[in-house]
């Protein structure tokens, strides 16, 4: 698939901008702070309903404006064009439109446009907290099967409710006594947490298994003489990985039972997929803390390339976005990466200077300066 046209209104630094796009490589070049990343961020937002740079929506809306509008026409498989539109109002639910029809939930937009985005922030996939890697898995899950966005939000809702319950119980206990009734409903929440949590866990484990060979292959291509990558999904509790959703549910119920005294004392849910970890190993050692800067970069790129391969193999080639990454890489990784993505149906690149865009990536060039996007070549 590819984006044929992007329009922004009151998004970040743009009051209004219209950008026609072609398949193949397109590079946005311009000095820092001129709005290159804002363009690709908007495309990423349509695909994931979130920004790769900020957690809240407020910074996405232009200063002084009430809401931002992102609209794109997406050409999918078989040449069918879909017009996707999102209205982003901070503090409120987004409003979505598909082909000018109002009657859609934002969640329905997921899957129309699929992207794989490379950004300097990706280094935190390897060096950062487990939360970064969980988010990586969950976003990829949603890109593969948009339905799972519902599973994720259900799980988060159950978790919030259960944590609120544990917190009041813990506070009551500290102040002497504590209502027994508070905990009477805990088992009910355990049941809900185990059911939604098991679904999420099972899908993640399945995803990690599918990614494993693809990551290894991508890493070999980026760093031919380096070690072997191994992905390992780890529970937040002792015990082997489940082979079915039913088994995962029973494991979670048992783990919740075992952790109960601790959970009540701390007022927090301590087991579940929100505390699981995706361990990235390089040879026998964990990448975090052991891999060099260059190795960490190769690993992060391999995770993204593997995501791309996975989505592509399951139909609907995603749009590749490379946001300011080439400046971060040494010459060898830069060229390898360029070769690997050059054949993509649509590749959008941002760079501060034209020399940062590798030779292998020839295509359209846009100059981005002071909120204006001007086409330079062909």
């Amino acid at each position: 698939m590819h984006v044929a046209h992007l329009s922004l209104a009151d998004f970040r630094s743009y009051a209004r901008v219209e950008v026609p796009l072609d398949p193949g490589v397109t590079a946005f070049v311009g000095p820092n702070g001129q709005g290159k990343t804002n363009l690709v961020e908007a495309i990423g937002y349509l695909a994931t309903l979130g920004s790769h740079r900020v957690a809240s929506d407020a910074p996405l809306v232009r200063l002084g404006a009430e809401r931002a509008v992102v609209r794109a026409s997406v050409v999918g498989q078989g040449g069918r064009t879909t017009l996707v539109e999102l209205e982003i109002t901070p503090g409120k639910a987004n409003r979505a439109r598909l082909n000018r029809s109002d009657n859609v939930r934002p969640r329905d937009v997921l899957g129309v446009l699929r992207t794989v985005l490379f950004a300097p922030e990706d280094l935190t996939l390897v060096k950062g907290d487990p939360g970064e890697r969980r988010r990586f898995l969950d976003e990829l899950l949603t890109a593969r099967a948009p339905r799972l966005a519902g599973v994720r939000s259900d799980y988060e809702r159950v978790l919030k409710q259960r944590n609120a319950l544990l917190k009041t119980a813990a506070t009551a206990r500290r102040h002497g006594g504590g209502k027994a009734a508070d905990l009477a409903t805990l088992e009910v929440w355990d049941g809900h947490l185990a059911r939604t949590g098991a679904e999420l866990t099972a899908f993640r484990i399945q995803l990690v298994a599918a990614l494993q060979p693809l990551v290894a292959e991508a890493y070999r291509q980026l760093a031919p003489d380096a070690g072997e990558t191994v992905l390992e999904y780890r529970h937040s509790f002792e015990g082997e990985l489940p082979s079915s959703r039913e088994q995962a549910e029973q494991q979670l119920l048992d783990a919740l039972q075992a952790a109960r005294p601790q959970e009540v004392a701390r007022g927090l849910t301590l087991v579940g997929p929100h505390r699981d970890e995706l361990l990235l190993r390089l040879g026998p050692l964990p990448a975090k803390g052991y891999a060099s800067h260059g190795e960490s970069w190769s690993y992060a790129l391999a995770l993204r390339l593997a995501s791309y391969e996975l989505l592509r193999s399951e139909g609907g080639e995603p749009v590749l976005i490379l946001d300011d990454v080439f400046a971060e890489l040494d010459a060898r990784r830069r060229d390898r990466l360029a070769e690997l993505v050059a054949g993509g149906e649509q590749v959008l690149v941002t760079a501060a200077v034209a020399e940062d865009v590798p030779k292998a990536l020839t295509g359209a060039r846009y100059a981005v300066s002071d909120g204006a996007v001007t086409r330079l070549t062909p």
Partner: protein
Amino acid sequence: MYEGVVQDLIDELGRLPGVGPKSAQRIAFHILQADPVDVRRLAFALQQVKEKVRFCSVCGNVAESEQCRVCLDPRRDLAVICVVEESKDVVAIERTREFRGRYHVLGGAISPIEGVGPDDLRIRELMTRLADGTVTELILATDPNLEGEATATYLARLCKPMGLKVTRLASGLPVGGDLEYADEVTLGRAFEGRRLLDV
């Protein structure tokens, strides 16, 4: 900002559920321009609703006397109780004319985030109603969202030892709709709850 009383009215209206600042302003100006008789009738209705309406001592539904209309109706089946979250759910179910039993209004659903536990709902009153054995079936009609499901599960566990028939309203496809427009969760539920077609 408007002059004193007008702004007061806008502020008060803006506090109502579903009314934003723009709508509040529109309603306020509608009232300003309306016939004084109409406005007096609205004010009277507002006052009356607070003074006259009470909650049924049996089921918790809104009532104008000690008990609500459903509980006072001798034709209703005493053996079945339908548990709902709010009085407005009673109205919704009454419109179907399918249900001939009586109701029990909980006054909400279990939601720790909002500080609502079982003790804050009319669950103890429900247990009292169930104690004498007249009731043989309990229909759980709480909302089909997470909090409603949790409340239903909690009640089902609580009532299990009493030997009652406990049922939950079915979730599934809307009547007269198209299958292709159903979301995955609803469609999944409809599959779980499929039934034998007796021909």
